């Protein structure tokens, strides 16, 4: 019990003292996971909308694949991204392994199916007559899709939170493709694993507290945006 209290106290010390290493790790975590979430939103919402609003043979299989992808294990993604980015791998010439960019790539792959799955679900749950109504009012197809996305923004915001929450807390892929290099690819989760291995439990707890606090603040902000726009 003392250990947990010491850890929380240590967390405040590290924050108040603005420890440059901890700040760097925190900033990198937010930057990497934030970028990955934005990329996954762009891909997830656009493809998710296409899947939800068109009908084609094998659509159910595609939707099941997307839904399975929502539970994609980060270590599996980490392994395959590593293999592709190895010097001897197909994308080795890019020299991306053990860089922050590599973590962004892996995390985007993890978050995209989450956003896509929630997008498909959200758009399909809208009343079918809404589409006809929008088209009848003379909207183009693009305008129609945009209006539907706007209509489904409440569950879509949940998708943003689920995607971001999934990647900021993920450790398997980050350690495999990032390598936990000090001052370069060390993020909050990989640093926590390392400090635990080193027996620095107070620092590990401090990092966990930071991770939880930032998740809370960001999810609170997203919830505010979501609830503000609640349709009447």
């Amino acid at each position: 019990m003392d250990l947990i209290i010491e850890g929380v106290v240590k967390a405040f010390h590290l924050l108040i003292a603005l420890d440059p290493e901890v700040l760097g790790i925190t900033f990198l975590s937010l930057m990497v996971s934030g970028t990955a979430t934005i990329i996954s939103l762009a891909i997830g919402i656009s493809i998710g909308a296409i899947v939800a609003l068109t009908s084609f043979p094998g659509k159910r299989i595609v939707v099941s694949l997307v839904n399975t992808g929502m539970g994609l294990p980060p270590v599996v993604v980490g392994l395959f991204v590593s293999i592709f980015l190895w010097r001897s791998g197909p994308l080795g010439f890019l020299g991306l392994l053990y860089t922050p960019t590599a973590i962004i790539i892996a995390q985007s792959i993890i978050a995209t199916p989450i956003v896509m799955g929630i997008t498909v679900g959200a758009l399909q749950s809208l009343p079918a007559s809404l589409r006809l109504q929008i088209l009848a009012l003379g909207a183009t197809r693009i305008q129609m899709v945009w209006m539907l996305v706007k209509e489904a923004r409440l569950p879509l915001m949940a998708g943003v939170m689920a995607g971001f929450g999934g990647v900021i807390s993920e450790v398997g892929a980050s350690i495999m493709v990032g390598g936990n290099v000090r001052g370069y690819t060390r993020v909050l989760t990989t640093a926590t694993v390392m400090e635990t291995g080193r027996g620095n439990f107070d620092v590990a707890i401090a990092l966990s507290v930071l991770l939880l606090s930032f998740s809370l603040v960001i999810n609170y902000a997203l919830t505010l945006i979501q609830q503000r726009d609640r349709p009447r």
Partner: protein
Amino acid sequence: MMKQRGMRQSAAWLLAACAIVTASAASAAEKKGSTVILATTTSTQDSGLLDVLIPTFQKETGHFVKTISVGSGQAMAMGRKGEADVLLVHSPADEQKMVAEGFGVHRRLVMHNDFIVVGPASDPAKIKGAKSSKEALKLIAEAKPEAKALFLSRGDNSGTHSKEKGLWKAAGMNPEGQKWYQQTGLGMGETLSVASEKDGYTLTDRGTYLSLAKKKKLHLEILVQGEPLLLNVYHVIEVNPEKWPKVNAAGARAFADFMLSKETQGVIGRFGVDTFGAPLFFPDAGKKPESLGL
């Protein structure tokens, strides 16, 4: 409408900012010199030695080091595929094989410490005072089931795991699949925690044990030590650039030379003295392995 434009705009700004940060972080690393990928064991990282050495090397040479801390087995697998430039490892038999097969060059002795067998103070298999590690392992293997002796193995092809397998072989036993023999598949630090929690025995390098015993409040005591067979030697190996043209040979050589330089060897010899009262590693640059009793 205004709100949405604001949101879209801020999203665009965020994306741009992220891109700039990524680009600048990447270029900061590239600017200073080349990037060296060092694949090494968990013990050098968990003990904190590399955190002392790497910043000095980066400042002196301008090379940027990416330390990938894995078991010796995985480190050598990375070297064999050309995914690392230089290795700092402690698995002599596998190292010799790697060099003989032409994947590694310039294997040089850096430092040593020793392996110890640790276990609970209650010592259910009564191995304390055993004449050799061989005898100790035999006592663990032949302990009565009601004594509940348990041996925790790393099971991760690390240097320590490879040493442990060698010791079982020397004792003429195969513990695989036995009830009293469990593999953690984790690094040394975690395996010590597991052994402590489960009142088990394990083989560890002295450096990791000393650096963690107090911090992790381990309920483990040193039970077997001080035998030539238990020596733990670390070598630096450069990955052969003739096999893998993408390997950063110059950076690898610079790092290897740095590890063997007089100043670094001095730092290695002093590391841990003020915290643990004894050095964790003994510098060995220029020595022949035979002089250590290998």
